[in-house]
């Protein structure tokens, strides 16, 4: 961030107001009007935003934190209504301001950024043009050239690469992280005094979220803005905030400095929140050990390339190389993990593994047979033996079929058993996954996400598969539900000897359940190691960067500052020559630019694709 930019964008210095609070909320209460009457969302909220500080607000979903952050810009819509209290800003109560005056403050002096960056802008107009439109609306005195220049400078300040070109690109050409940066630009371009950031890192990958946090911290200093940072992740808020407020069902239960809150939480709810943050390194559980059974799944040098039409050339196509030369083996009864961030090719890989698509290169062997060569009856027989479970539990279940019918469907397709046998089997499996027998004849309406995921699991299990591929299956569930299902998977494994392939971005969950783990980056496995080695002595800088960026409240062996990644993964259309990770690697050297590292296999059977010798990475700062 260039200093000159920040200074020329600062308003006239207001030293007399230096210590006065930027915003004071007093006795704020919000209700929701429903058919059943009023229900309290927020009760008697008092908070103060100090100048040049970051106030963290933490709460679980349903605690009212989004309502609070919207009430702070007087932006609540029916059925929500403010019943009492005040939001004082600059000597005025925002709640009593005329609508036009309030609209004049919103987006000018008080900026708001939400959790949904990819749909926050008009999809048909270039991003830069929309930010320019906003700047021109709030600062009509700027000439068009000056305004445009300021937008480009601010895009540069949030480290969006080649901001001049990006200015003319459309929202769908931006990744989630880039889009969130653009929204930060949009908020800061008018140089607001207060920025309300409502769960802004929620949809982002951990390494990108870590970048956004650091960026926001830097910008807060440079732009002299106070920030209210709302989040449901304690690990994230504690990275950025000075002071913290804990919100529980509409009440503030605790307020402390970050350090104080983590060290000496006072309220029971705060303690519970802290205890709920999954421990990756400090956990007492011993991770699962690799299985020594026979090889069930043998993936050899698999690749998949998609073709997309090129808009800039006539009759040209561009190749999206989604999966490149992936090899690994999974043994019977093992939990194998595949981790990576969005766009790394893990979902394409899951489609290849479950035979929904054919690989362009290499082969996938299931119990010694190449699944690509199977057709018709053989393929159907194979499908019985491995099943894919996906993330979304809602769209995977037909809304008009009874739960029993949904679970029986695979048996009917495969023609397994008479009606009575099928009903018997379905009821058995429902009991096994913890679905009440009464649900057999009911429609899935009103089932919770966890219950729906159980229906999906039952539907897969009824075929008695040997291999389950879990593609982010537990990602949409809360911690408690997730833990219950993991226990269920474990029980099933002991009972039936099922092999699991977990595909996930959740490093804490993978740490808990997987014996061996592959880390994917840009369509390739960069490191493949057993659980302990991966988390304590990782051999690849990308793995370390991922682990250093996980929002936790415990000490980590990898310091964020050492491994923080710059920028975003390259486009899988234009993969750079040499090592594909070198554009973001803090340890890249000359050889990485020309030479693509192949996997080095170490004595313990672990492997990583990096030119750096194992001992040349900084030593982990925490011993096992």
């Amino acid at each position, binding site marked *: 961030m260039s200093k000159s930019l920040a200074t020329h964008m600062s308003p006239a210095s207001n030293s007399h107001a230096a210590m006065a609070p930027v915003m004071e909320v007093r006795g704020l209460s919000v209700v929701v009007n429903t058919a059943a009457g009023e229900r309290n969302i927020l009760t008697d909220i008092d908070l103060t935003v100090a100048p040049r500080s970051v106030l963290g607000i933490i709460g679980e979903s349903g605690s009212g934190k989004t309502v609070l952050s919207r009430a702070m810009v007087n932006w609540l819509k029916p059925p929500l209504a403010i019943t009492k209290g005040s939001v004082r800003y600059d000597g005025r109560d925002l709640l009593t301001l005329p609508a036009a005056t309030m*609209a004049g403050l919103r987006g000018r002096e008080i900026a708001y950024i939400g959790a949904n960056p990819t749909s926050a802008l008009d999809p048909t107009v270039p991003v830069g043009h929309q930010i320019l439109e906003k700047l021109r*609306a709030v600062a009509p005195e700027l000439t068009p050239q000056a305004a445009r220049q300021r937008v480009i400078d601010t895009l540069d300040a949030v480290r969006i690469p080649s901001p001049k070109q990006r200015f003319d690109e459309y929202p769908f050409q931006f990744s989630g992280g880039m889009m969130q940066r653009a929204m930060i630009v949009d908020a800061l371009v008018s140089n607001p005094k207060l920025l309300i950031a409502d769960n802004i890192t929620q949809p982002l990958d951990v390494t990108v979220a870590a970048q956004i946090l650091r960026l926001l911290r830097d910008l807060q200093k440079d732009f002299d803005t106070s920030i209210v940072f709302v989040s449901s992740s304690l690990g994230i808020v504690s990275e950025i905030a000075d002071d913290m407020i804990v919100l529980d069902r509409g009440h503030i239960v605790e307020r402390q400095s970050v350090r104080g809150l983590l060290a000496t939480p006072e309220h029971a709810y705060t303690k519970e929140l802290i205890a709920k943050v999954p421990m990756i390194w400090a956990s007492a559980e011993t991770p699962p050990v690799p299985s020594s059974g026979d090889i069930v799944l043998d993936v050899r040098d698999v690749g998949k390339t998609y073709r997309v039409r090129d*808009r800039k050339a006539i009759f040209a196509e561009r190749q999206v190389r989604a999966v490149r030369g992936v090899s690994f083996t999974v043994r019977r009864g093992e939990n194998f993990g595949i981790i990576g961030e969005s766009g790394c090719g893990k979902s394409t890989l899951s489609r290849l593994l479950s035979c929904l698509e054919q690989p362009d290169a290499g082969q996938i062997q299931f119990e010694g047979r190449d699944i690509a060569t199977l057709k018709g009856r053989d393929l159907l027989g194979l499908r019985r033996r491995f099943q894919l479970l996906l993330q979304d539990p809602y769209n995977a279940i037909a809304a008009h079929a009874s739960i029993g019918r949904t679970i029986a469907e695979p048996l009917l397709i495969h023609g397994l058993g008479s009606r009575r046998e099928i009903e018997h089997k379905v009821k058995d499996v429902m009991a096994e996954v913890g679905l009440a027998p009464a649900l057999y004849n009911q429609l899935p309406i009103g089932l919770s996400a966890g219950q729906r995921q159980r229906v999906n699991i039952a539907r897969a299990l009824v075929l008695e598969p040997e291999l389950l591929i879990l593609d982010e299956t537990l990602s949409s569930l809360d911690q408690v539900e997730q833990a219950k299902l993991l226990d269920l998977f474990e029980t099933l494994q002991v009972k039936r000897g099922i092999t699991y392939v977990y595909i996930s971005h959740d490093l804490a969950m993978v740490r808990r359940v997987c014996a061996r783990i592959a880390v994917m980056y840009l369509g390739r496995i960069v490191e493949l190691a057993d659980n302990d080695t991966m988390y304590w002595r990782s051999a690849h800088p990308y793995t370390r960067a991922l682990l250093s960026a996980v929002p936790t409240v415990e000490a980590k062996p990898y310091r964020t500052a050492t491994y923080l990644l710059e920028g975003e993964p390259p486009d899988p259309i234009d993969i750079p020559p040499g090592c594909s990770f070198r554009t973001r690697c803090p340890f890249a050297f000359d050889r990485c630019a020309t030479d693509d590292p192949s996997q080095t296999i170490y004595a313990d059977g672990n492997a990583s694709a990096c030119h750096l010798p194992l001992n040349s990475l900084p030593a982990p700062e925490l011993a096992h």
Partner: protein
Amino acid sequence: MAFAIEFFLRRISQGVVIVILVAFVIFTLLRIVPGDPIRIILGPMASAAALEEKATELGLRDPIYVQFGRFMGQVTTGDFGRSFIRGAQGGSAGGSQDAAGYNPESRASVSGLIANALPYSLQLAALGIAFAFLVAIPIGLGAGLRAGKWPDRLGLYVSSLFVSLPNIWVGVVLIFLLSAKTGWLPAIGYQGFAYTIIPAMVLAIELSPVMIRAISVSVAANLGEVYFDVGLVRGLSRRTMVAKHVLRNAAVPLLNLFGAQMIGMLLGGLFVVEYIFSYPGIGMLTINAVFQRDFPIIQAVAILASAALVAINMLVDFASTTIDRRLKF
């Protein structure tokens, strides 16, 4: 730029194939339906031998694909053949002469007939669309912007009313009210621009209900989008958001509706409306041709209509992808 070139090259080549297929189907159907064209050309008085001789001479006894090939060869030079019935000076001449007296040169050329009628139809269609826009845009926008309020209900009532009025009945009522009763506007035939107004109103009443519904649904859906809400929090006024973003986004489904449905409705509407008002356009030409089994005219109009549909859809798709760059064609 590269995208535009590729788009048009691709779509024009696809379009040509479609038009040729449509032409072939129509050409074939018209030749396998009962009724020998040569009987129509020469009339009921001609002898069987004369019919056969003339038919062979005109190529009507060749296999269909040979006839079709010959026909398409002529079409590429802009020649759609000659009417069976209409004389070069206008008026019908069919069935009034024997084999010896028939000379194809004495019949009007189809392309000439179409070229005469087309400007009238284009004028009527343009005015009809303009009237439809005039009614549908304000009502549809109001309904979309004030969903659930009285403008929304107005939109629903107006479109329900218009959609349930048969265009023949509307035509007769308007002729009675605006022409016969009050004498404000002329109604039958064509002697000047004023003759287009009442037929255009009938067309507009037919077109506008679909437009009203489409506009209001599309605008209301965009008001519910996240970007609209966020835009207001970002500091943009509601008016700016509607004028610059909502209308732009709402235009895409409307364009598609226009390409897919409206042009078809318009063509169908033209046939009926021109017939009611004896309006000398393509519709009138075609309907008379159907009654007289004047196959060359029918097939030429059908081919031109399919070409027009293909061309308009191509332009509509290009406009859509220019507005919304996520769309792929």
